């Protein structure tokens, strides 16, 4: 047998013997699961398509009068309470140090936009951690944020922080946050950088 032949056969034998196919009873169980999942998806399609059409019709019916200005008296609800107004629309900055989270250490900026969007900028070395679509909400002296739910805080509830103004700074103290990464960023004093309303 040639060198190549020996190599091929060694590879084939290793693969054949190391990776067993599922047993017949497992295959039969898998077939049942597949048929169930397929049937469920077919049913969902039957329900979702008409619902999507209905939603599109409703959206059109709702949007047209709004576009024509018929609902001018209905203002969008905002996340900001009067008492919280001073921290909204302001850009805050915080230098995160320690915590043993390399890449997360550095300067972060935070902006709570009046429309409820939360904008964070992160240290330049940190990639792949987005905050698109994240939001904030203030209830009394508590700030609720859902930053990083699409990344390291996925499947975790939003974090809640007590907020207060201290001199020119915004001080956030963790009330409840099961996401360590988010707590490491938010918990502490933030200094004002400027307004961005």
């Amino acid at each position, binding site marked *: 047998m040639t060198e190549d032949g020996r190599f091929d056969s060694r590879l084939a034998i290793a693969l054949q013997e190391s990776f*067993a196919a599922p047993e017949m009873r497992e295959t039969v169980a898998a077939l049942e699961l597949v048929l169930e999942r*397929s049937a469920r998806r077919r049913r969902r399609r039957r329900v979702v398509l008409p619902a999507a059409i209905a939603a599109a019709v409703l959206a059109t019916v709702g949007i047209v009068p709004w576009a024509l200005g018929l609902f001018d008296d209905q203002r969008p609800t905002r996340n900001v309470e009067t008492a919280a107004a001073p921290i909204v629309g302001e850009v805050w900055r915080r230098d995160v140090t320690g915590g043993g989270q390399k890449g997360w250490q550095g300067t972060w900026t935070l902006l709570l936009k009046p429309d409820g969007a939360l904008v964070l900028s992160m240290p330049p070395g940190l990639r792949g951690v987005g905050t698109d679509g994240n939001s904030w909400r203030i209830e009394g002296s508590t700030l609720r944020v859902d930053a990083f739910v699409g990344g390291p805080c996925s499947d975790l509830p939003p974090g809640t922080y007590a907020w207060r103004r201290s001199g020119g700074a915004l001080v956030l103290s963790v009330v409840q946050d099961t996401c360590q990464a988010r707590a490491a960023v938010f918990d502490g004093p933030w200094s004002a950088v400027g307004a961005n309303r």
Partner: protein
Amino acid sequence: MGQDASTSDAEAFAWFFTAEYGQVVRVLTVVLHERPAAEDLAQEAFVRLHLHWAKVSRYDRPEVWVRRVALNLAFSYRRREYRRRTLEAVATWPEVEPEWNPRVDHDDVIAAIRTLKPRERALIALFHMEDRPLDEVSDVLGMTPGAAKVALHRARRRLARRLTDTEVTP
């Protein structure tokens, strides 16, 4: 009449599933190193096959279609998992080594295969484990036969270097 057609379709699908499911799971296990994920993604590929069975069953080689779907799902899963693990590692959680439990002891060969990229592992699994001809392998992976041959040659050369320091050609 319609009832008969759908019964025979269901039977044909069941036969096809019984013949191919195990092989697809094996190929995905080589690519992913994770048996549960391989089973889950193989099942997802077969769900999609079932939804399109009326059309795909008329193809010359529906087994190529289901492998292509399964491997695309596996490659996406790998990318997602890689991103998630990178983020988690950065955010203080330790990186978890994927599960790897080969049944028989071929540690050196399996360890060498693990060093390959997912697409190369798929090539090796389809060509050496499933014994599929190169044109079919290239069809599954959406490559030209020439590109598949070159990629397979490189993967084999890398494996050979790790295992025996010997040059091989496909």
